[in-house]
């Protein structure tokens, strides 16, 4: 028994140090700095702030529900059926996720959307559909078809089978996806600013305003704590739910998609085309504009002001691969630790790993610069960029692997141990083959999170290295048709890269299982 516990500690050490040094410590330092001067009576913690907190919660909840509904048809189609273009469809939907808000915002504004709550909700659905489709379909496609067949033989209709058999099995994955969408929209910044204007401030926007525009650090720290408490509460409720709903059953090692026939064919086609079509509307404006001049050629030429824009691609890819590596290793180890031991310690560990996704980027960014000067001065270091990206990406890896890991019955592992397998061998032979497919989904998200520059990097001093999003921002920051056209062309390059690399990761070979 002691041996197993030490193994647990060893595996837990890396993710714990990572989250401790790069998240808890910096955030504690900056909040401490702010709170030291907080004077509740004199601060503006008034009705307006209550309203902002209420709006933040309300829009995040509504955005999450709408995203789940909007993603449902496509999730069903790509989980249940094998058809031409399935991989392409699941790769294409990740494109909105990675596009800089400033690009999508301009597209939405030029389409006549803007300054309304509907524009904010639509944009949240647009950005987050991929999270639901990809997280849920990983599990759904590998449900043992015999379960559903058995129900059907017993006389259940298709709808009853879905409601009574499939849906209960999917609940953990749906909840996992919902938790991520909730955190993303709870901390929404660019979308709310660009499409909602100032009237629809979220806590994230208000923290930025207090910390940066007004430099009221005490109030910003107080708000950051309100945000953290809200996020922690939501995550706690989620983890309790997850524990109650976790069902163990044997997942198939390979997916069980079948060819659609008859009416299903039409429904699949409709689901795919409608979802991709709706997500494409803002993208089409972008593609059209990128082709209205010789903008792609210019990306390869030296611009007197920004250099060769295309050179940003190399930097972005390098950061993204490093971030993906860090996030995947940390995330899979963390997931193994969390499944290895039930109980409150492991629940809080899980919850803490999710927090970076729900903490304002300004808080983390300012935390970095006050805390990471010692023992090695990591501030403004190149390493901080992939590390900051990985911080946001780890939750994706954990959330996409946990439902799968939890579905492995404890008896299977115990049987292997009884037969003399060491814990690491049990992990290698039983867990790893099953979890690797899910880990790849998480890895793909980690890659995309980094390509899109999520997290604190845009709020913190960094070396002057241009990435694709900073180059787009740079081009959009100056007037002129070619500036705009090149920015759009660059955004299309980002979109194509994203779709291509996600497809490539999706097809990767893993261990001895062969191709999925």
């Amino acid at each position, binding site marked *: 028994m002691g041996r197993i516990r030490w193994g647990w500690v060893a595996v837990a050490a890396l993710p714990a140090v990572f989250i401790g040094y790069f998240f808890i410590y910096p955030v504690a330092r900056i909040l401490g700095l702010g709170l030291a001067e907080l004077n509740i009576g004199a601060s503006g913690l008034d009705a307006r702030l209550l309203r902002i907190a209420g709006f933040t919660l309300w829009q995040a909840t509504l955005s999450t529900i709408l995203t789940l509904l909007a993603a449902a048809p496509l999730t069903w189609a790509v989980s249940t059926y094998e058809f031409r273009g399935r991989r392409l469809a699941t790769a294409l939907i990740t494109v909105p996720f990675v596009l800089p808000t400033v690009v999508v915002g301009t597209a939405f504004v030029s389409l006549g959307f803007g300054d309304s709550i509907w524009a904010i909700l639509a944009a949240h659905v647009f950005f987050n559909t991929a999270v639901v489709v990809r997280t849920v379909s990983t599990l759904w496609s590998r449900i043992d078809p015999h379960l559903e067949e058995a129900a059907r033989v017993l006389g259940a209709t298709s709808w009853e089978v879905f409601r009574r058999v499939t849906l209960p099995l999917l609940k953990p994955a749906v909840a996992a996806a919902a938790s991520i969408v909730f955190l993303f929209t709870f901390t929404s910044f660019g979308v709310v600013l660009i499409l909602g204007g*100032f009237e629809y401030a979220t806590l994230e926007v208000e923290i930025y305003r207090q910390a940066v525009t007004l430099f009221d650090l005490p109030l910003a720290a107080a708000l950051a704590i309100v945000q953290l408490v809200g996020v922690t509460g939501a995550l706690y409720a989620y983890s309790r739910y997850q524990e109650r709903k976790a069902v163990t059953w044997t997942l198939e090692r390979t997916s069980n998609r079948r060819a659609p026939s008859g009416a299903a064919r039409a429904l699949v086609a409709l689901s795919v085309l409608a979802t991709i079509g709706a997500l494409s509307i803002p993208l089409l404006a972008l593609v059209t504009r990128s082709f209205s001049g010789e903008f792609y050629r210019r990306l390869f030429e030296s611009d007197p002001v920004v250099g060769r824009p295309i050179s940003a691609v190399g930097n972005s890819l390098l950061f993204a691969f490093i971030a993906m590596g860090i996030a995947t290793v940390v995330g899979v180890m963390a997931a193994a630790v969390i499944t290895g031991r039930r109980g409150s310690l492991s629940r809080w560990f899980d919850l803490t790993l999710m927090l970076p996704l729900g903490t304002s980027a300004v808080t983390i960014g*300012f935390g970095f610069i006050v805390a990471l000067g010692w023992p090695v001065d990591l501030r403004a270091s190149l390493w901080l960029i992939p590390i900051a990206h990985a911080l946001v990406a780890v939750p994706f890896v954990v959330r996409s692997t946990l439902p799968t890991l939890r579905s492995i019955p404890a008896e299977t592992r115990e049987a292997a141990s009884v037969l003399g397998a060491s814990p690491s061998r049990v992990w290698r032979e039983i867990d790893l083959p099953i979890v690797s497919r899910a880990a790849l989904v998480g890895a793909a998200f980690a890659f995309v999170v980094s390509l899109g520059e999520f997290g604190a990097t845009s709020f913190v001093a960094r070396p002057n290295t241009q990435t694709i999003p900073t180059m787009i921002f740079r081009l959009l920051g100056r007037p002129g*048709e070619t500036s705009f056209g090149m920015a759009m062309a660059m955004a299309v390059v980002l979109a194509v890269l994203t779709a291509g690399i996600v497809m490539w990761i999706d097809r990767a070979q893993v261990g001895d299982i062969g191709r999925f």
Partner: protein
Amino acid sequence: MALALVLAACSGGASEESPQTITLMAHDSFAGGVTSATFASFTQETGVEVKVIAAGDAGLLVNQAILTKDNPLADVLFGVDDTFLSRALDEEIFLIHKAKDINRVAPGLVDRKHRVTPIDFGDVCINYDKSWFESTKLVVPDDLDDLRANLYASHLTVEHPATSSPGLAFVLATIYEFGEEGWLDYWADLREAGVNVATDWNSAYYGDFSRYGGQSSMVVSYASSPPAEVIFAAEPTDTAPTGVIEAGCYRQVEYAGILAGTDYPEVAAKLVDFMLSVEFQERIPLAWFVFPANQDAELPQEFVDYAIVPEDPARFSASHIAENRDRWINEWIVVMEG
């Protein structure tokens, strides 16, 4: 402590070792325009490389410099403007340095105590879409009062002063023009007449401006935007498609300063001197689309032909802005959104 450093910086003591690199922290838009040529001759003269750190927008830049005052991220900071200058000066993050060419700068731009050195300036002005005015045969408005008319206000996009630096500058221009007693009435009229408010410059210019398919034929931008429209036109052209309304402009000045915690105050001072030298100053217009502070610097032809330098732009002192900014923005919000 601060005093000792000031003395060290001024005395030119020989004790300072020359570093291999010196670090300059700046806002993203400056950092993005730095190329290998930008500081090449500085490195040639001094043997010191310049490392540039991008620190977000102007507000983030100043706040990060304050937060790291005791253990600074850089030796020199560039990109603080009048709207954030007071905060930086109150925190005493800069060393005093009188730059070599400072007497070649218009006196109005200079900090009398030499805590910061002006490097460039830009004028925020309303730009208009020439083809829209030609096709509607409307006269281009020539003062802020003209804009009160529905016909014009409903075709104007401004940026929000709380989220956009040109947005705040334009609000300051209206306060300068109409005074404390009249500016809110002016905005009430604009609101009544249907003015459009965008969050930031990007969405105003590329989302709402009629030149890029939007609904507004006028947008708050810069006096140097027309030359950029010519230089970055899709097809070579010799006429700017946009024009500048010379009334209601606000002048923004950007400063550089030596960060008080630096280990190399002398080299840092040389870098500030270099940034005010004619060589560097002549790079400024085409790299960052603002005007050089040093009057000896010659403007590129595109700026001579298409840019406008308004005669009497509005300007407030940094301390006046610091005292009133939050109140102004809140009052503006009440009128525009209340």
